């Protein structure tokens, strides 16, 4: 097991290294390099100045050289300065990551809380009108464009009913805990809804799978009602794949969070990445993307490890 985790961790580091090079190269292709930005700020810069500036910042070096220099600094914990925020990039990141993890964590938990009962009921009453209804809702949930659903919720709850704030993270000048919760309601609702659909489908098929197992027949033969057999025995075993597959959706959840943050101007990682890319803040974009990738890969690894731990029938040790 330990050997498996170590092997996976090496894989994670390898992917991160590869990703960092690819993203570093791609960011160099974005319109407007740092020198261009200085040019727009000062019309009296001459072409000799440009050449000198490029030499000073090492921009005349080939891509691999520049990348290795960046990597060397990064390994020492120096991820450069953020252009937009005028702070070390890593310092901008930390509070944003916390905000995003709140958004994602609450939405993930709520989505499971909705999806598990719904999925079990759909599985128990297969092909009934109840199953069809739940299925229809699940399909609607993962087919709806998240940003549009967010807009509809704003239209309904912020514009028409004027109940909740249309966007932001907290009131100007900070607010009480209740205020912060009010700002979380619509983003969380949006992310929960678009996530729950997939989870309902997972739960339904996992429970159906378990209901065919012999131990359910045994439980029924011993006199348990259908209801008891499903909730006590099938559900427990179905939860293992459901929890794993759900945790493996971390990357999708993060993409969803990015959209939701952009719509609701919620100050999280997703919005930070988007603003950094749009605002030519290369250092920040790079480190934020790397962090998002690292967190996603580690979440997937954790899901796999917990899966093995929960289900002794699986053995990755070989």
């Amino acid at each position, binding site marked *: 097991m330990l050997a498996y985790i170590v092997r996976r961790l090496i894989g994670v580091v390898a*992917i991160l290294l590869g990703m960092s090079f690819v993203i570093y190269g791609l960011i160099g*292709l974005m319109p407007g390099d740092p020198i261009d930005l200085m040019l727009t700020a000062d019309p009296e810069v001459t072409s000799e100045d440009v050449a000198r500036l490029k030499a000073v910042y090492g921009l005349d070096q080939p891509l691999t050289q520049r990348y290795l220099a960046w990597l060397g600094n990064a390994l020492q914990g120096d991820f450069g300065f953020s252009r937009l925020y005028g702070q070390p990039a890593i310092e901008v990141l930390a509070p944003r990551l916390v905000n995003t993890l709140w958004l994602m964590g609450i939405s993930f938990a709520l989505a499971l809380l909705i999806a598990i009962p719904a999925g079990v009921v759909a599985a128990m009453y297969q092909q009934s009108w109840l199953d069809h209804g739940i299925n229809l809702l699940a399909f609607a949930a993962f*087919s709806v464009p998240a940003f*549009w659903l967010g807009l509809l919720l704003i239209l309904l709850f912020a514009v028409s009913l004027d109940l909740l704030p249309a966007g932001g993270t907290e009131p100007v000048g900070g607010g009480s805990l209740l205020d912060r919760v009010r700002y979380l309601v619509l983003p969380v609702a949006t992310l929960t809804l678009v996530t729950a659909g997939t989870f309902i489908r997972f739960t339904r098929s996992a429970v159906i799978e378990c209901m065919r197992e012999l131990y359910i027949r045994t439980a029924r033969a011993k006199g348990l009602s259908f209801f008891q057999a499903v909730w006590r025995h099938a559900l427990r075993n179905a939860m293992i794949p459901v929890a794993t597959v759900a945790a493996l959706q971390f990357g999708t959840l993060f*993409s969803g969070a990015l959209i939701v943050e952009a719509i609701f101007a919620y100050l999280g990682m997703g919005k930070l990445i988007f603003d950094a890319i749009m605002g030519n803040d290369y250092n920040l974009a790079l480190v934020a*993307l790397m962090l998002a990738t690292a967190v996603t890969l580690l979440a997937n690894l954790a899901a796999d490890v917990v899966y093995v731990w929960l289900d002794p029938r699986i053995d990755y040790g070989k």
Partner: protein
Amino acid sequence: MASSAGPAHRFLARFATHRFAIASTAALLLLAAVLLAAPLVENLMGIDPDRTDLLRRTAPPSLEHPLGTDDLGRDLLLRLLYGGRVSLSVGLGGALLAAVIGTAVGLLAGIAGGRTDAFLMRFTDGVIALPILPLLIILAAIDLSKLPLLGLSQGADSSGVGRIIAIVALFGWTTVARLVRGAVLSLQEREFVQSARALGAGPWHIVRRHLLPNVAAPITVATTLAIGNVILAESILSFLGLGIQPPTPSWGNMLTNAQELIWAAPRLAILPGLMIFFVVIAFNFLGDGLQDALDPRLVRR
């Protein structure tokens, strides 16, 4: 062998039991007909869908403009029709390209086996694990003309349709690759493939005559289910201003200003999103129906 009806008949009979899939197929066919007729509608109305009219911005529905006008005074109905053509083309194109890439990777991994297989599958798993949307945003934001190798000029593909299809396919091929690889691994052990090989059939012949026909069904299902996701991805990128570039309309970029418009003209923020929603859910139901109908394991349920 004893089955009285052919496989096509059985497929149709099973597909017909999926009511949502039937309704979706009908709705998609109707939509396709309407979208194909967009130039006819344009001629009939005598309006240019790209012509702006700043004096008649966000006008309510009228005889001249059945759905009213958008924030630049363009006819909303025509924009929806032409935008639908773009969004659907991107969805179909992206899903097909992804299926082609995925099939190629899956076939290569399954047939070559060994280290090639291990490397390709590790790579596939790596791509699956990535947070995709931020990467899509970067790829959509970069300036390809900065790459001297490609020799692209700035003006080529100014609407961005080709680029979006390529970007989306870059991440969409993984499902098909895994599916094809798995199928090839198990098919290669089957007698009909082994006997073909024993009779001297080359690898290309086996791929074409034995492997591809047998993986066609799962590929079709996966591709159909991918169309919806591609349309969603296009709509997100276009909504963020990075996808299809105006004046070419797409359902996604019609929503770019929706955040301001929901206060002034909610209709403009609601209708394009509703179209995306309906089309995506229809493709997902269609894919689900195909899956049920093509998967023989589900017959005895």
